[in-house]
């Protein structure tokens, strides 16, 4: 998504929020809560986790307002914090093992059962890491280098995850995946 607040206004709001102005902070919250929550939902296992990520993201924003470089996109900065919080939660809950099982199950599902899913369901069915890479790259426009740094992986890993995710989406969506 694009920045919902023009840069000049963002600078002013951030400066006021840094000085302790709660109304400025609430303005920032209201402007970005939907985008942060959507990103968190795409990267989290459950809606409850996404709510926690939303809360943790804005608390981190309050702590780190001084770290935003006022010449850069405010959303890009917030997005990075939100993605980082979601990934931290993912690591903390040690879901990688379960994720690998999900991935195996998903492959079997794709090969054996020619179901037709809608895009929302297919995206949700992707393993968490693949879904994260697809969302950050294809929707948020982050580069493979940025994603690799955020996830602590290599750029090759990010590229291969994206390719695997698209192969799965194509299999699950069938002909629908070939039509606009």
């Amino acid at each position: 998504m694009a920045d919902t607040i023009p840069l000049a206004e963002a600078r002013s709001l951030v400066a006021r929020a840094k000085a302790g102005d709660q109304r400025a902070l609430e303005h920032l919250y209201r402007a970005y809560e939907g985008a942060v929550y959507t990103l968190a939902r795409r990267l989290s296992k459950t809606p409850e986790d996404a709510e926690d990520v939303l809360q943790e993201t804005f608390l981190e924003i309050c702590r780190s307002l001084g770290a935003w470089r006022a010449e850069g996109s405010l959303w890009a900065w917030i997005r990075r914090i939100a993605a980082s919080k979601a990934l931290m939660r993912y690591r903390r809950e040690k879901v990688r093992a379960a994720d690998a099982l999900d991935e195996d199950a998903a492959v079997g599902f794709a090969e054996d059962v020619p179901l037709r899913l809608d895009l929302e369901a297919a995206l949700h069915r992707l393993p968490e890491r693949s879904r994260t890479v697809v969302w950050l790259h294809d929707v948020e426009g982050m580069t493979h280098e940025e994603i690799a740094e955020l996830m602590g992986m290599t750029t090759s890993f990010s590229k291969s995850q994206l390719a695997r995710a698209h192969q799965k989406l194509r299999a699950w969506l069938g002909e629908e995946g070939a039509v606009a």
Partner: protein
Amino acid sequence: MSDVRHGTMEELLAVRDGEGSAWARGHVEACASCGAELYRLEQMRSRLRALPQYAPPRDRWAVVAVQARAERRVRMVSALTGLAAAAALAGLLLVAAQGAGPDPLAARTSLRAAMARSQAMERTLRELNPDSRALNGQAAAAVADLQGRIEALDARLGDPAALGRDLGRQAELWNERAGLLSALVDVHTTRVALAGL
């Protein structure tokens, strides 16, 4: 039938993103199958971007605002507490030098113990990492109330001129502060225990 190899998914995605190799870029121009696949990948990206945005089910602003204010206050109070402790110690030295008070040694010991209790509770609270999980409304209200009372106490402790040389009163306030911190620890401990169920 052609034996020309087709582009892999990774190669086609690179072309879509403007980073493909010269071979891959040329191939999708000539190969109808890979050209169609590239078109499908472009459409898929558009469809992903067009998915609707979620709306948070509950308004979290009140909780965020309470915690953000509390954290800001803690940062300010940390500095204030240091000043208050220094002022209290200066008071102790002054009293000792003047030999004032009915039992200056007992008062000093009592004050030091109260300050130590408060500091120990601060450490316990930090170790609980209270920001790692969202608060529900009831817990947030309890935390806000306790933090407000601690804030009021810190304001009094941070004003040694108002407290004067009454070491007994200072010890009472520090003990009260330790008690409030203990209650905060209880709230967060209960929340952690419930979350683990």
